[in-house]
């Protein structure tokens, strides 16, 4: 954006004059307002293969030079994943604030003991985050190495993560069965409503993450995987773990 002349405008006689005064003078002369012309930007030609074109790093001028814009930006999926995580955060913020308001607004709230399998599920989900991180690092090394040996494809850590993720969802299902056997259904009490709601919406998001992992595994098998796709899938997965810890804390404290 060009520096604006109208904020501090100096007239020909060196006085500071107001913007209005200038426009009046202009209209007398019958000319349009003058604009300064920026010097064309110097383009830094270093370009990463996996980058976009302009990129958000243009926020910061390269090496402090104001007119030089840097030309290496992260690929869109690494920005997109933060956008997705933000939307999910807002969604669960809405759900959990509804929980707080609903609990505070009436006397019909009946607390119940959380099924103990939830704590086991938590361990499973944390473990899956660890195995995914191992997988991510190994794949990064594998992608970076010059010689590729088929048998050393580090996909098996992804398999383990996938299994642990499925185990978590199955574990959540057992938690619901447990509640059902205690006679606690969706509409029994607001506390059970929120329990089913929060765990189910979270489980749906976990299933989405499993879909993402399967996508990454297929890409890896066909040697079409891009590092940012793996990183995005991993961020999503870790976020599911953090989100679950938050939800568990809310359920434990509030139900």
């Amino acid at each position, binding site marked *: 954006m060009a520096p604006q002349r109208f904020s501090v405008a100096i007239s020909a006689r060196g006085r500071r004059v107001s913007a209005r005064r200038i426009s009046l003078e202009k*209209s007398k002369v019958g000319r349009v307002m003058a604009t300064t012309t920026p010097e064309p930007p110097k383009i830094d030609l270093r370009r990463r293969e996996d980058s976009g074109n302009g990129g958000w790093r243009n926020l910061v001028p390269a090496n402090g030079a104001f007119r030089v814009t840097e030309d290496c930006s992260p690929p869109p999926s690494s920005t997109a994943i933060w956008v997705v995580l933000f*939307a999910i955060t807002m969604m669960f913020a809405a759900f959990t604030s509804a929980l707080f308001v609903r609990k505070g607004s009436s006397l019909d709230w009946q607390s119940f003991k959380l099924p103990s399998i939830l704590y086991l599920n938590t361990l499973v989900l944390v473990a899956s985050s660890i195995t995914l991180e191992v997988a991510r690092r190994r794949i990064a090394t594998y992608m970076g190495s010059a010689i590729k040996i088929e048998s050393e494809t580090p996909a098996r850590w992804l398999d383990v993560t996938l299994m642990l993720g499925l185990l978590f969802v199955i574990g959540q299902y057992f938690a619901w069965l447990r509640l059902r056997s205690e006679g606690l259904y969706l509409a029994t009490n607001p506390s059970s409503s929120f329990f089913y709601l929060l765990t189910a919406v979270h489980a749906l998001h976990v299933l989405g993450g499993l879909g993402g992992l399967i996508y990454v595994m297929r890409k890896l098998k066909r040697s079409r995987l891009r590092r940012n796709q793996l990183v995005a899938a991993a961020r999503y997965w870790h976020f599911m773990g953090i989100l679950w810890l938050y939800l568990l804390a809310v359920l434990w404290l509030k139900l």
Partner: protein
Amino acid sequence: MHDIFAPAVQHHAPPTSFIRKHVFSLDHKVIGKQYYGLALLAALIGMFLSWLMRIHLAWNSAAIPGLHLLSANGAPGDQMTPEYYLQLMTMHGTIMVFFVLTTAPFAAFGNFFLPIQVGAEDMPFPRFNMMSFWVTFCAFVALMTSFFVSDGPTLGGWTQYAPLNAVGPVGGPGQGTGVVLWMVSIALFCVGQLLGSLNFITTTLDLRVKGLSLMRLPLSAWAWFITSCMGLTAFAVLMPACILCILDHVAGTSFFVPSNLVLNGQILPHSGGSTLLWQHLFWFFGHPEVYIAIVPGMGIVSHILMANLRKPLLSQRVILYCMGALAVLSYMVYGHHMFVSGMNPYSALAFSFPTLIITIPATIVVLIWLFSIYGSKLRINSASLFALGFISMFVSGGVSGFFLAQPSLDILLHGTYFVVGHFHMVMGVAAMFGIFAGTYFWAPKMFGRMMNEPLGKLHFWLSFVGTYCIFMPFHYLGLAGNVRRYASFVDDYLQPLIPVHRFITIAALATGAAQLIFLYNLIHSRFWGKPATDNPWEATSLEWSTATPPPFDNFGGKHPVVYHDPFQYGVKSSVGDYVMQASPEQVTTEHEEE
């Protein structure tokens, strides 16, 4: 390392089949046009509903011929029942707010022009983009379906206040299936807009061409970016609210329905729900939604004004910061919709204060526009006229906002036509004028043909005068105590106001008919208009440096490089008094001569 890395942006090949080209297209330009078509259809339906309502308000006992065909229950003997009036009102509001004011300026123009203005070939996630449109389309179909269920669409108003939204058929006609369809529709709409926002944000941040720093983006692109950030936050909250409401309906939970609620002589089985919870969740979305509708208009108007003023606005950066401030503040003011909900007066004060503060950035933007126009030689065409109309409507509607921001005054005015006049002018008509301005300005690029200018100007003057005739009297009615949401005015004190209502109805019918001129102009010039050149307005931003209409990959296999900001008007260059963003030409500054 690089051998297994594919390029970052998935370039999809030009489609060949009709379905991939025009129906399930991945091309952001086709998706933009699809959104525009959806908004146009929705606007026509919404306008038709408003006609029915206005006729009923002015001539209460008159039969509207053929109305029983729309709803046998709602209009027995072509006489509109009060419930049917409320159903029409709800659908008018929902259609207009969601499917016109959100889709047209943001999703339609944004989809078509944001990637071109940043120099990209497409959005980064074209499949999500396609899904975004088709999910929105399904949402519209779901909403329209409710006209055809047995007791008609919901009557709860576009805000769908609890507990009426969650009690089921006992709440009145349309509160059974109708309200569930409404909730499903809006939840789907949220999904569509979230997918759209994802694409808008990543396009703006990651796909800009070389040299296009954020500060060199046109204000329209900035407006879409800011709007998508707002949409991301707002729609992600409305969707959970809809899910909770659907559960109250179909699963018997009690999120929103309080204990021992007696409705039509029947005690409801729900217990302990919070009716205010819905209002909080809804207005946390609802107030930013107002800015989602208006901020793209502000960007479009700034963009169009500069091209027609032939000079930069006094300060683009301040406009940009003001739009950002509006976006942030819009989340802090939502409580002003709930002044009469029985909330603590101290919270009312806490919401009143930012409400008054939010007028400051809005005022600054308006003053910048006005002072930039002052003393300049504005090129008068349909687009610039509608841009001026936008400013006029925005100011006229905005001024009444000062009154409503005071909790003490709002208690008096909240339930009256004053509020109806306020939001129709500042949000409805102003945003519509932004859409019209954008259409007249960008239709040459979208469709390759110029629109008819005399018809466009006629359309402007009729709409401009007409909308003032409709909505200014609303303020008067409100101050006279005319209650809103009533299907008929039978109280003694309202009788003297009936002539005003008749005047408004006639104005509404005439102004609505004037929109048919626009429709004719749009369709006629689409096929038989004068072919447009690449840059008919001598504008600077990137969309004007490509062919008309743009090729499939927007720039014909080239990546433009940006050398200037988009405000280089009033300079001396080889092409005239402007220099294109993508032109490497060094231009001389035209110094003032005294």
